[in-house]
């Protein structure tokens, strides 16, 4: 990645005035804050993390463009390193060298985001962009390297085009578990609980649960000060973005259509659908509990939701067994 090219100025023309203006004059002067969520379980080999942190080292060296990267590590992961000198060495000599490590007791990945994005936000300013990078991805593979080569586009799109949030998408074939979960689970449930917002989300992205995203300072500030969910926080963020008319963009960061790495077990897929439903129920109540007769409407949607979830689980069972 050529970081010099990434930040170079370009020329834009205003559609209304027709006058040329340097692209840099529209661009914010803020910095990009990379936030890496360290894998909860120790990977069998460190090739993937090694590839990721070679990129993180480059961010750390480019202080004009990037703030000091942050790595969020679950305290249970850190404790387990005592029995694994190889992983402890990686933490101390690689991760801690190129990033500030935030040790946090977390129940799930979304809580790691909360800790990491929150820590980055406290160092940031109004023009800054925050960039989440999940650590549990096979970055050492050919496909992983392709994803790594495109990831920097996400915060740059937010920065250059003044987007509030940019979602990174990984293309999959129709029978990939991620695709099945989103088609028959996430979107089906969204259409039940938030039909109007679901259509708006789908016009922006096919990956409403993506862990690859970048978000601008103002929108992150709003999100951090609201209720944060332990699961499926990207869906919640997109719902807020649509409700509050924020700008959402998407960008393709890679393709895993022919590789098995992205496949989840049936049990994991079922759990993801179930917790998406739980989050949507909670979020719907939060949005409607001030209205009269909300509980009656809620019961009706809940009955429909159960049918949607059952159908999704049947589909997943048929295709992922």
């Amino acid at each position, binding site marked *: 990645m050529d970081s010099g090219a990434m930040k170079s100025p370009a020329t834009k023309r205003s559609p209304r005035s027709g006058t040329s203006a340097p692209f840099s004059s529209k661009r914010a002067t803020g910095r990009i804050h990379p936030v890496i969520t360290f894998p909860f379980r120790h990977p069998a080999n460190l090739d993937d993390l090694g590839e990721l942190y070679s990129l993180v080292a480059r961010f750390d060296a480019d202080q004009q463009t990037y703030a000091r990267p942050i790595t969020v590590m679950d305290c249970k992961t850190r404790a387990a390193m005592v029995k694994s000198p190889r992983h402890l060495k990686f933490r101390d000599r690689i991760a801690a060298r190129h990033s500030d490590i935030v040790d946090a007791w977390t129940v799930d990945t979304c809580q790691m985001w909360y800790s990491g994005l929150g820590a980055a936000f406290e160092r940031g300013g109004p023009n800054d962009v925050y960039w989440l990078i999940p650590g549990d991805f096979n970055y050492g593979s050919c496909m992983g390297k392709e994803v790594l080569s495109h990831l920097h586009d996400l915060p740059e799109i937010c920065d250059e085009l003044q987007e509030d949030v940019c979602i990174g998408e990984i293309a999959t074939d129709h029978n990939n578990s991620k695709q099945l979960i989103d088609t028959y689970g996430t979107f089906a449930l969204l259409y039940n609980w938030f039909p109007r917002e679901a259509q708006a989300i789908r016009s922006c992205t096919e990956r409403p649960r993506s862990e690859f995203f970048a978000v601008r300072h103002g929108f992150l500030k709003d999100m951090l000060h609201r209720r944060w969910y332990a699961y499926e926080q990207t869906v919640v963020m997109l719902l807020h973005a649509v409700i509050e008319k924020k700008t959402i*963009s998407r*960008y393709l960061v890679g393709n895993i259509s022919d590789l098995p790495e992205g496949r989840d077990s049936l049990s994991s897929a079922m759990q993801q659908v179930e917790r998406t439903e739980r989050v949507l129920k909670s979020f719907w109540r939060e949005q409607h509990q001030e209205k009269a007769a909300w509980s009656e409407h809620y019961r009706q949607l809940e009955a429909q939701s159960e049918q949607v979830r059952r159908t999704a689980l049947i589909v997943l069972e048929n295709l992922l067994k």
Partner: protein
Amino acid sequence: MSISRGQYGAHNITARNFICVAPQAKHVSVVGDFNGWNRSANPMQRGGDGNWVLRVDLKHGHHRYAYIVDGQVTLDPKAMGIARDDHGERVSLIAVS
């Protein structure tokens, strides 16, 4: 419809080939923030296979664009991304680096 990478030029400029598949169309142009969304700035040329092609020099960065196919704004189905224009309408996204 797609975009292919052209050769690198000087001063952080890269030539990109815009390709729009519209064999029945009578006129196709490409608009974007690189030409002020001017419909007459970059008319595309019809190729022998029914594709419409144009090479455009783009500065490094991220650009929003769309095709105008017989007067209709059309997204590029093979674009790397989607964003919104200044009026909130969906447009295609290209990264140049």
